[in-house]
């Protein structure tokens, strides 16, 4: 015990020598702001918070932690929704917030080189004068950092057409657990060797610490047109999405909101949503003026045939923004009608949307908790928001259990427990449902290849088989339970 305290004191001393007194936080009042990320139901006070200024300091900090065998949890802006940046009591929380420089906007080669602490939206703002932008746009883009986007493989409204973070990356500089600099990708569209760039993306800070990112920029569309279609039944909206995709159009955004989220958003933002509709479909078309015009004609025809009760088009940039403002503010809007809400992030093949929503509805009645649904409809990513009150004893547990059931449903329909928020701490039990023990073992082996001592964000994202046994989860593949002949209760 004494030697451990001694080691901790040595580590503190060394970290101060690297980043300076001001940038190592160790007092309770300094640590508390870091005890959770965007998933505030989970809180742990870290041993220390370290805020390096540049990649060299990150490298030195990681080396030092490696030497003292101290676990590291990396943190960007702390907006993550799955507890991926939840600290460890005996670990260092490594904040990358001070690495916040846009290093280069390379207009000729349409790319940006940035540090991990740069905010997502700041990239597009810096690129805009050159007629360029960065496509992935998570709803938290005002605040979330690019480093965090890489760690979670963040998506957003645009990703049906323009891809996730992984599809918009060209290069990463990563500090490995033993403090070496690993350069992945480069200036070209591919690189030699295995594709470690893809593997690193979405690895939730468990394979390395990203210290520099090269992003692909795209030309700003000449025109964007936004439409809103209302439906009297949610199922009709779901079918309309399938029809739009089958007609050969890939909209820049395609979102569904259900009645409860429409009403919450309307009360909050006054976006002009029809509060009597069962669902609305928001759709963005972009490209050259001619592309938008031809897509628009096709889209109108599809929507008219889909039973939409009203189709509205935004006639000005302002109106366009207002239509989207309601969607983008859907989470806080729901936050106004309920003391607490729990946001899920499952994905499903789109064709099962109607069935899944019916299941969610009956679960909602069973648990006596309301649910508002917003849905990245184009890519099958559901965000059911479970409304609860943490002050009512047992409601949080109920909400969590309900959420877990929704995720298991997604797996049963051939989908995934997380589309863009990551597993983190939150969905770790449901990983036991999505993956077999061979697959989970393979993940652990892969982690060991990068991090043999398990020092990078240990305990997140991939459950141990022991944990799965305790959770009692049954692995469901392709909608089929193992041993379907047995009765399950």
């Amino acid at each position, binding site marked *: 015990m004494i030697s451990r305290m001694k080691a901790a004191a040595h580590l503190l001393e060394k970290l101060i020598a690297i980043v300076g007194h001001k940038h190592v936080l160790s007092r309770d009042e300094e640590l508390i702001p870091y005890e959770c990320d965007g998933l505030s139901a989970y809180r742990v006070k870290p041993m220390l918070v370290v805020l390096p200024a540049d990649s060299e300091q990150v490298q030195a900090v990681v080396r030092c932690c490696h030497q003292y065998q101290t676990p590291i949890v990396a943190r960007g802006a702390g907006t993550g929704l799955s507890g991926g940046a939840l600290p460890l009591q005996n670990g260092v929380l490594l904040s990358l917030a001070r690495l916040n420089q846009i290093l280069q906007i390379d207009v000729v080669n349409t790319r940006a080189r940035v540090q991990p602490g740069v905010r997502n939206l700041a990239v597009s703002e810096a690129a805009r004068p050159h007629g360029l932008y960065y496509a992935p746009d998570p709803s938290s883009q005002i605040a979330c950092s690019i480093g965090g986007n890489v760690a979670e493989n963040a998506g957003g409204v645009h990703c049906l057409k323009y891809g996730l973070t992984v599809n918009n990356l060209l290069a990463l500089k990563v500090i490995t657990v033993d403090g070496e600099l690993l350069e992945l990708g480069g200036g070209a569209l591919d690189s030699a060797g295995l594709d470690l760039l893809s593997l690193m993306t979405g690895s939730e800070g468990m394979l390395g610490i990203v210290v520099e990112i090269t992003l692909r920029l795209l030309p700003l569309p000449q025109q964007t047109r936004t439409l809103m279609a209302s439906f009297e039944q949610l199922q009709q909206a779901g079918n309309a999405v399938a029809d739009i995709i*089958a007609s050969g159009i890939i909209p820049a955004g395609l979102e569904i909101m259900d009645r409860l989220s429409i009403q919450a958003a309307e009360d909050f933002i006054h976006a002009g949503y029809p509060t009597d509709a069962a669902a609305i479909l928001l759709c963005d078309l972009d490209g050259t003026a001619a592309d938008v015009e031809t897509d628009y004609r096709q889209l109108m025809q599809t929507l008219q045939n889909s039973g939409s009760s009203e189709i509205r088009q935004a006639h000005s940039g302002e109106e366009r923004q207002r239509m989207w403002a309601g969607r983008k503010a859907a989470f806080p809007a729901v936050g106004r009608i309920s003391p607490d809400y729990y946001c899920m992030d499952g*994905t499903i093949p789109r064709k099962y949307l109607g069935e899944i929503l019916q299941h969610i509805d009956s679960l909602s009645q069973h648990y006596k908790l309301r649910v508002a649904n917003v849905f990245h409809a184009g890519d099958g990513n559901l965000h059911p928001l479970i409304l609860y009150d943490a002050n009512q004893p047992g409601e949080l547990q109920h909400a969590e259990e309900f959420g877990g059931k929704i995720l298991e449903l997604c797996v049963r329909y051939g989908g995934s427990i997380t589309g863009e928020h990551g597993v983190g701490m939150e969905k770790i039990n449901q990983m036991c449902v999505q993956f*077999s023990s061979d697959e989970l073992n393979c993940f652990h082996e892969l982690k060991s290849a990068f991090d043999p001592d398990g020092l990078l964000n240990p305990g997140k994202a991939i459950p141990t088989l022991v944990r799965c046994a305790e959770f009692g989860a049954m692995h469901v593949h392709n909608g089929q339970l193992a041993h379907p002949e047995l009765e399950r209760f």
Partner: protein
Amino acid sequence: MTTEDPASALQEQIRYAAKHRQSLQIVGNHSKQHLGRHSQGEILSSNRLNGIVAYDPSELVISVRAGTAVSVIQETLKKNCQTLPFDPPCFNGRDASIGGAVAAGLAGPSRPWNGAVRDSLLGIRLVDGQARHMRFGGQVMKNVAGYDISRLMAGAWGTLGLLTEVSLKLLPRAPAELTLRHECDATQALQTMRKLALKPYRQSGACWMQGQLRLRFSAHPDSLQQIRQQIGGESEESSFWSDLRDHKLDFFNSREPLWRLSVRPDADIQQQTQIIDWAGAQRWLISTQAADKLRELAEKYSGHAILFANGDRNSAVFQPLDKVSARLQQRLKHTFDPDGIFNPGRMYSDC
């Protein structure tokens, strides 16, 4: 899974090979045997893994067994006005298997706009060196559960295991195509390519060879009409793009070493015999220059060089990795293939 699953026979073959530390050479349709490094071993053939597992056009996803021919997939997709975004090449007049196409990670001329193999790859089933049949990723567009092992398989040349099934994101086939031809030198061509990269046109090709720049666009005829007016040039209808993709142009007839340089698009590379593809990001060179020289040249433009075909297939075909990457790559190889049975030496001599 039924007992007739042809994958289980292959799983058995892998289990046996691992036990006896016997090398296996994974083969689909033999269309890429002239690529990569020379590798020996007993044949592990995916050609019994045949057929489409799931395809619903409105989902924009197809799941297919790894031995299925690319042409069969493309035919099916064409009927529904869809296509494989990465437009994989088929060499030597042979059809490619989809497993081979994914393992080689090669994409056609539309790569800068429509993405690489990895961008379309949503999920895989894989038998690893411990004969574990596993599924990673899935059939949905977005999936961040677990490490992205699917995408790791794109371009791994079968060194990590046998792909038995892949799920791919699709793209609607554009209603029309337009190719415009301009006479210009390489420098002017690169300038035009860079200028167009700042325009939101639905472009699908930009290639310069022998004094001619060809630009391809895929969109609605109304949009193409406008592009033609704005950009000008001779319009052309030919098999140029598929010939370029499948290396059927005369340029590729040479027996001399064929190099592929993957570089920053604005790279100012002056070489006699070259094709500039991918709007500058991919250069094909016929060259007998020393490998080191070409690798230096590629590195100067933050890229890498591959001895794509011909030349010594036992030499370092791919650009050597730096120390840190090489070590990680070896550890990953060991993770998936602890006995080193899959395609030994196909990418690098030591893994």
